[in-house]
């Protein structure tokens, strides 16, 4: 057992060495045009990945078998913990999560080797070399500051348990997806740096870099949505986004990745926006590193307590400075060589994508500025202040409103040269539908804020715009048959855009129409919230695997008919000495009923909080659609061709 951990440690060191070789040899080979040296990259990428995977598996094994000779396992696990959380405990801590991070770096490197069959050999060697340089930095970081394989001199009898808040299915899978996203952007970065070294960016480059960016963006979307969903049901008041520095750290790369995958379209189709796209690729990964830095350094106080260690922070700051600084220097030296080719009018799809990029990049800048401002203000102006949700809501939302307004028109403008009037006219039904819906709801809700109807208008406008976009591509005859034959990229685009519209609407709707009720409740005394009748029937102490629960039984009735029995809990984790609340949620299409149980009062009653959360599910439903749209787009034939999948000819091409 303990042999396996030693081997894991050894594999990690070996992977580090392979990474050093892969960083140097193929790059020299590419510069000197020595094909033998370039060819080192592929086997090295595979070896690096396999070694790191073995190392990670060894650490997971230590967690699964509760090997308390490992310091990390002692600090973050307990023998009574359920198996799922023993496994997820592997990355529920600083050291293990960094190992997962570097595992994904090597996975992407290996994937570039597997699918990079039709990349020019020079570009492939350089991409793999740059990717390996990133891996080298993080291997060094792990081995020198955050080694997960450190031993205990005297192994204790049992562990100290994982933070109970992290013992949750939603949060078990939140970090892996987030890292797939963060690290996926390292691929775009490697492609950008390799292209800068080569001094050549063309349509083919745009086509190669886009699937990686798209995949990274999809994973980031899923990771962020999982985190937000977790916050919604776990933290006990149904908040889903707090503009916390750590949330912002994942949101900024998401915004830039969204910008990047749009600007790469312009590179691919029109050979324009080249240097900007390269810059975005560098910045997007730069923000991933900044995110890591923010989380690990404890620079900004946050609800996500992780390893707050200045020494580690400095190390990551050096990595960040080296990679972004180096890439930006290279960019400054080489960007002039990227000559744009495509010519297009002021009103065109290209221009619309420029508008998209401006809005996404500036909104990212606003989030960044707001996140960093407390530090800037303290250092330079001697003011200790906070920048919280009210600022971000006010400063960020206008950009999303503009983006939503422009999206349907921009996504339907023709390439090269278009007419605004004509495109707008083709969206007239979508516009009329959205305005009517908003007016209807505004009339129904009498006297409440205009946020709800405005959100509904914007959401409906984006969704119906996406539908019109698809419909307009079907020509005049045999529309449904043609709809089915449209390229998957078109479907992916429409689905992802519709998802954004749904999320926009849901955020506005939930914020505008939420109801809250806080009261002390006696047993079997019904009370009403938002048209529902709730009755607290009893409260029981229920033991769990590694916690003790205080569980309330709340009957939920609608029009005298019982629709659910809700069991809100308070859990006490004796080992970690930390209580958590487990809200009971009745999930429905149009609204959630969200019940939380509090303390027992002196008069024998219990504090009960009830929230009616309209359209809550739609927030994550929209995110799922965005991710799904990305996946559909990824499966488009163009990318399969670009990824080098060579298939045997499948008979004749069907006549159009």
């Amino acid at each position, binding site marked *: 057992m303990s042999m396996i951990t030693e081997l894991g440690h050894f594999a990690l060191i070996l992977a580090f060495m392979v990474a050093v070789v892969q960083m140097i040899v193929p790059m020299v080979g590419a510069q000197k045009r020595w094909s033998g040296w370039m060819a080192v990259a592929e086997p090295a990428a595979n070896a690096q990945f396999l070694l790191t995977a073995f190392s990670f598996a060894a650490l997971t094994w230590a967690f699964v078998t509760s090997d308390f000779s490992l310091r990390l396992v002692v600090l973050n696990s307990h023998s009574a913990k359920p198996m799922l959380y023993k496994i997820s405990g592997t990355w529920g801590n600083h050291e293990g999560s960094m190992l997962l991070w570097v595992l994904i770096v090597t996975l992407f490197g290996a994937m570039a080797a597997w699918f990079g069959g*039709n990349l020019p050999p020079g570009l492939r060697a350089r991409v793999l070399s740059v990717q390996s340089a990133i891996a080298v930095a993080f291997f060094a970081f792990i081995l020198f500051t955050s080694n997960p394989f450190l031993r205990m001199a005297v192994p204790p009898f049992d562990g100290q348990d994982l933070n109970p808040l992290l013992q949750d299915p939603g949060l078990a899978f939140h970090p892996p997806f987030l890292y797939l996203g963060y690290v996926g952007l390292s691929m775009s970065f490697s492609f950008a740096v390799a292209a800068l070294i080569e001094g050549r960016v063309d349509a083919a480059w745009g086509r190669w870099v886009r699937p990686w960016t798209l995949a990274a963006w999809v994973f980031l979307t899923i990771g962020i949505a999982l985190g937000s969903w977790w916050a919604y049901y776990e933290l*006990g*008041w149904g*908040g889903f986004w707090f503009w*916390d520095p750590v949330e912002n750290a994942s949101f900024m790369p998401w915004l830039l990745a969204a910008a990047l995958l749009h600007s790469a379209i312009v590179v691919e189709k029109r050979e*324009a926006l080249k240097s900007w796209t390269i810059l975005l690729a560098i910045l997007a990964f730069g923000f991933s590193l900044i995110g890591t830095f923010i989380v690990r350094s404890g620079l900004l*106080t*946050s*609800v996500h*307590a992780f390893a707050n260690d200045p020494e580690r922070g400095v190390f990551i700051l050096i990595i960040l400075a080296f990679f972004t600084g180096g890439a930006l220097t290279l960019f400054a030296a080489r960007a002039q060589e990227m*000559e*744009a*080719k*495509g*010519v*297009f009018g*002021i009103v065109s799809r*290209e221009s619309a994508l*420029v*508008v998209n990029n*401006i809005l996404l*990049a*500036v909104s990212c*800048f*606003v989030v960044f*500025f*707001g996140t960093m*401002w407390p530090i800037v*203000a303290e250092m330079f*102006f001697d*003011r*200790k*202040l*906070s*920048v*919280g*949700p*009210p*600022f971000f809501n*006010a*400063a*960020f939302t206008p*950009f999303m409103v503009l983006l939503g307004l422009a999206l349907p028109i921009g996504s339907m403008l023709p390439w090269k040269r278009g007419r605004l009037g004509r495109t707008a006219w083709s969206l007239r039904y979508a516009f009329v539908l959205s305005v009517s819906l908003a007016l209807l709801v505004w009339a129904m809700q009498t006297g409440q804020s205009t946020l709800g109807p405005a959100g509904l208008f914007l959401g409906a406008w984006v969704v119906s715009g996406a539908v019109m976009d698809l419909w307009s591509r079907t020509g005049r005859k045999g529309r449904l048959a043609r709809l089915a034959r449209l390229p998957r990229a078109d479907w992916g685009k429409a689905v992802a855009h519709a998802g954004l519209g749904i999320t926009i609407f849901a955020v506005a709707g939930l914020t505008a129409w939420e109801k809250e009720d*806080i*009261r*002390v409740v006696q047993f079997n005394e019904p009370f009403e919230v938002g048209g529902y009748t709730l009755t607290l029937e009893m409260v029981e102490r229920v033991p769990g695997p590694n916690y003790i629960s205080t569980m309330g039984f709340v009957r939920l009735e609608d029009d005298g008919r019982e629709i659910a029995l809700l069991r809100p809990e*308070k859990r006490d984790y004796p080992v970690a000495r*930390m*209580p*958590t*609340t487990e809200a009971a949620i009745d999930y429905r299409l149009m609204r959630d009923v969200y019940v*939380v149980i*509090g*303390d027992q*009062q002196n008069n024998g009653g219990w*504090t009960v909080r009830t929230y009616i959360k309209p359209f809550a599910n739609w927030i994550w439903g929209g995110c799922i659609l965005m991710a799904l749209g990305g996946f559909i787009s990824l499966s488009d034939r163009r990318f399969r*061709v670009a990824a080098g999948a*060579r*298939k045997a*000819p499948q008979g004749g091409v069907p006549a159009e």
Partner: protein
Amino acid sequence: MTRMLVLCAALLACLLAPLSAMAVEPDEVLDDPVLEQRARDLSQGLRCLVCRNESIDESNADLARDLRLLVRERLVAGDSNDEAIEFIVDRYGEYVLLKPTVTGANWLLWAAGPIMLLIAAGVGMLYLRGRSQAAPTPEEKLSDSEQARLKEILDD
């Protein structure tokens, strides 16, 4: 430095404090629903000083409760929203405000987005005008090997 230490200690206390009591308690709620709503709105803009980035409305720390009660006390005493906030800022400093005021250097924070948007729009417009007036570059001919590769891909 001592302030920093106090803050760290308070932060630690908050981390270890039980999470069982949740945010606004029933006994805090004012009878007048209009006044209560005002108190809730104000609470959402005030930071729990010992917590990591939570408003006093969401926090369950004792200090947050004290602040919530203080806000309500001021409102019941007839303070306007601004007066109540001013009262609290006088005692706890502007660190307590989650929405920074537009004073002094803070205007930079508030103006950063709009200014950046203007700059980006200007640069974007220049770029687009350049693109729309540029002479189209002649299509580069593919080399023979590139032609062959293209054919291979398209035939795939």
